[in-house]
C-alpha cells in the first residue's frame, strides 16, 4: 500500500492501483447528486409529477396521460440532459488537457459557433430537414478548418486556439447576418435553437448520446493515465515513454466525437464544457475526467430543471441558463481566488 490516497490490489504480476477514497467519494456524491437532480427534474415544473404520482407512473399504474408525460417527455429529456452534460464535461476536460490551456474547450475554439452557423444556414436554405444535421455540418466544417493547425504530434497549439477564436467570431457574424435576412417568426425559431435546447427530446436522442458515451468514455478512461502524464509538459511526458502522437490524436478524436454528439442532441449548449473541468480540478487531479463529466451532467440537468421551474422561463433554452449559472459561478470563484492571492501577497514576510 502506498498510502491513504491510493489503494493497490495485487494478484501475482497483475496489479491495479486506484485513488480509492477519491473514487468512493465521487461515486457516492455522484449517485446521490444524479438521483436528486433527476427527482427534482421530474417532479418540478408545470408538467411535473408529484413524488407519489411519479412512483405510480414508474410502476405503470398512473393514468395514461401521466404515463406518457413521464416516459415520452420528462424522462428522455432529463436523461438527454445528463448524457449531453457528461459528454460536454469530459470533452472540455480533454480539450483543456490537450491544449494545455484553461480556455481550450470545444465551444471556445468554435465548434459551438460553427454548429450555430450551420443550423441557421440550414433553416434558411433547407427548412424541411432536421436542423440538427445542419448543426453537425457546421461543427464539422469548423473542425476541418482547424485541421491544418493541428501540430505534427496532434497537439492543440496556442495558435490553434487563437484560430478557433477567429473562426468563432466569423461564425457568429454569419449567424447575425442570417438573422437579419429572415422573417420574425423564423428568427425566433432560430434564436431558440441557437442557445441549445432540450425541449422535445425523445428516446432517439437518448440512445444517440448514450451510444456515443458508451464508445468514447471507456476509450478516454483507458487513456487517462497518459493524459495525466501530459500535465508534466509534453517533453517530460514524451521522455517518460508516452507516445505523444497516438495519445493526443486518439484523445482528440474521442473528445470531438463527444462534443459533436452533444451538438447533435442539444444544439450549441454554452459554457458547460468550459466550466465543468475547472470545477472538477478544484479537488485535485485524481479522476478529473470522470468528475468533470459528472459535474457537466449535474450542471446541465439542474439548469434544465430551472428553466422548467422559474416563472416565465419555460421557453428559455437551457443553454442560456448554463451560460448564466456557469459563467457567474466561474467568475465568482476566480474573483475569490484573486482576492485571496492578493491578501496573501500583502502579508509581510
Amino acid at each position, binding site marked *: 500500500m*502506498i*498510502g491513504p*490516497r*491510493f489503494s*493497490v490490489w*495485487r494478484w501475482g*504480476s*497483475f*496489479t*491495479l*492501483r486506484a485513488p480509492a477514497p477519491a473514487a468512493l467519494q465521487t461515486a457516492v456524491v455522484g449517485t446521490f447528486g444524479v438521483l436528486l437532480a433527476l427527482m427534482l427534474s421530474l417532479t418540478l415544473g408545470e408538467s411535473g409529477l408529484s413524488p407519489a404520482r411519479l412512483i405510480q407512473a414508474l410502476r405503470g399504474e398512473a393514468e395514461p396521460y401521466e404515463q406518457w408525460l413521464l416516459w415520452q417527455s420528462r424522462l428522455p429529456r432529463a436523461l438527454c440532459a445528463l448524457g449531453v452534460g457528461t459528454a460536454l464535461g469530459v470533452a472540455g476536460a480533454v480539450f483543456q488537457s490537450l491544449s*494545455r490551456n484553461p480556455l481550450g474547450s470545444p465551444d471556445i475554439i468554435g465548434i459551438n459557433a460553427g454548429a450555430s452557423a450551420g443550423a441557421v444556414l440550414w433553416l434558411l436554405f433547407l427548412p424541411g430537414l432536421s436542423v440538427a444535421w445542419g448543426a453537425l455540418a457546421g461543427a464539422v466544417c469548423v473542425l476541418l478548418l482547424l485541421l491544418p493547425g493541428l501540430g505534427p504530434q496532434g497537439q492543440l497549439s496556442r495558435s490553434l486556439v487563437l484560430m478557433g477564436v477567429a473562426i468563432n467570431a466569423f461564425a457568429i457574424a454569419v449567424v447575425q447576418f442570417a438573422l437579419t435576412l429572415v422573417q420574425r417568426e423564423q428568427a425566433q425559431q432560430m434564436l431558440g435553437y441557437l442557445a441549445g435546447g432540450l425541449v422535445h427530446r425523445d428516446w432517439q436522442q437518448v440512445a444517440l448520446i448514450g451510444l456515443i458515451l458508451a464508445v468514447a468514455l471507456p476509450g478516454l478512461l*483507458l487513456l487517462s*493515465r497518459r493524459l*495525466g*502524464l501530459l*500535465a*508534466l*509538459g509534453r*517533453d*517530460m511526458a*514524451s*521522455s*517518460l*515513454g*508516452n*507516445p505523444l502522437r497516438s495519445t493526443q490524436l486518439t484523445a482528440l478524436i474521442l473528445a470531438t466525437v463527444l462534443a459533436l454528439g452533444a451538438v447533435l442532441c442539444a444544439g450549441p449548449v454554452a459554457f458547460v464544457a468550459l466550466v465543468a473541468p475547472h470545477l472538477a*480540478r478544484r479537488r*485535485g*487531479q485524481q479522476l478529473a475526467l470522470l468528475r468533470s463529466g459528472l459535474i457537466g451532467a449535474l450542471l446541465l440537468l439542474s439548469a434544465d430543471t430551472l428553466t422548467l421551474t422559474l416563472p416565465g422561463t419555460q421557453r428559455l433554452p437551457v443553454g442560456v441558463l448554463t451560460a448564466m449559472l456557469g459563467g457567474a459561478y466561474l467568475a465568482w470563484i476566480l474573483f475569490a481566488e484573486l482576492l485571496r492571492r492578493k491578501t496573501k501577497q500583502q502579508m509581510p514576510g
Partner: protein
Amino acid sequence: MTSDIYSDCILQGRGLHLHYAGRAVIAGLDIYIPRGQLTVVLGTNGCGKSSLLKILSQVLPPSKGQVMLDGKVLADMGSKERARQLALLVQKPELPDGIDVQELVSRGRYPHQSLWRQWSEDDEYAVAQALVATGLTDMARREVSSLSGGQQQRVWLALVLAQQTEVLLLDEPTSFLDIRAQLSVMDFCRALRLQGRTLVLVLHDINQALRYADHLLLMREGRILAQGAPEALICEQVLKDVFDLDACIIQDPEAGCPMLIPRVDQYDHAWGVTQQPGYK
C-alpha cells in the same frame, strides 16, 4: 576521435541535423557519450544544448542523422523501452496543480507500468529508494508547490531516478537554485556516476563543470567545437572561441582542477556605454 574514452560509448549520434523554423539549430554534429561518465555540455545561450538533449532522448526526432543507444537505433525502440534505459529532465517541467511529492515521483515509474501492471512491488521500492536518495522521505506527503526551489528540484531528480535508467540527461538542473542547492545537486550527480550511471548535464557555470565533469562537450551554433577531459581541453583560446570570453585560467585551490577567472573591463562597449572621464 580515436582516444580510448570513445571505445565504450553508451550513446552516440551521427550526422545529426535539426531544422526548426527555417533555422539549423543543430548543424551536422557527431556526438559520443562515454559509458559510466559524467559529461557536461557547455555553450552560449541558444547554441542548441537543450535541443541536443531532446534529440538524444528522441523527444525531438532529428531532421537528419540517427542516435544509437547501446548499439540500438533509438528511433526504432518502443517509447517505453527507451524510457526504461534513458531519462531526460527538461529545463522547465510543468508542475501539476495540487500534486504531492510521492505522487509526482511515482510518475517516473510510467515506463515500467502497463494497464495490467499498475503498481508492482518494484514500483513501490523504486519510489521509496528515490525518495531516500534525494532526502525527501519526510516530505513525501507535502504538496510540491509548497516546497522551496531547491527542494522542488530534488523532487524532479527523484522522479527521473525512480525511472531507474542507466542514462540520465539533465538540462540545467542547477539553474535558479542558490549556491548550496546547486552544489547539492552536483554532488548528487557525482554520486550517481559513482554508482556506474551515465550522466549528461547541460550547465552554465563553467567552474562547476570543470570541477565535476569527466568529459566536456563545448558547443557553438549547433556544432561541437571541442570535446575531451576538462584539464586537457580548457585553455584561454578555447574559452574565447566558445564564449567570446577573455578569461585567465588558474588552479582551483580547493579541488585542484582548472578554474576560470573572467578578465575585467571586456564588455564596456557591448552596451554602448562609454566610460566617463574620472570613472574607475
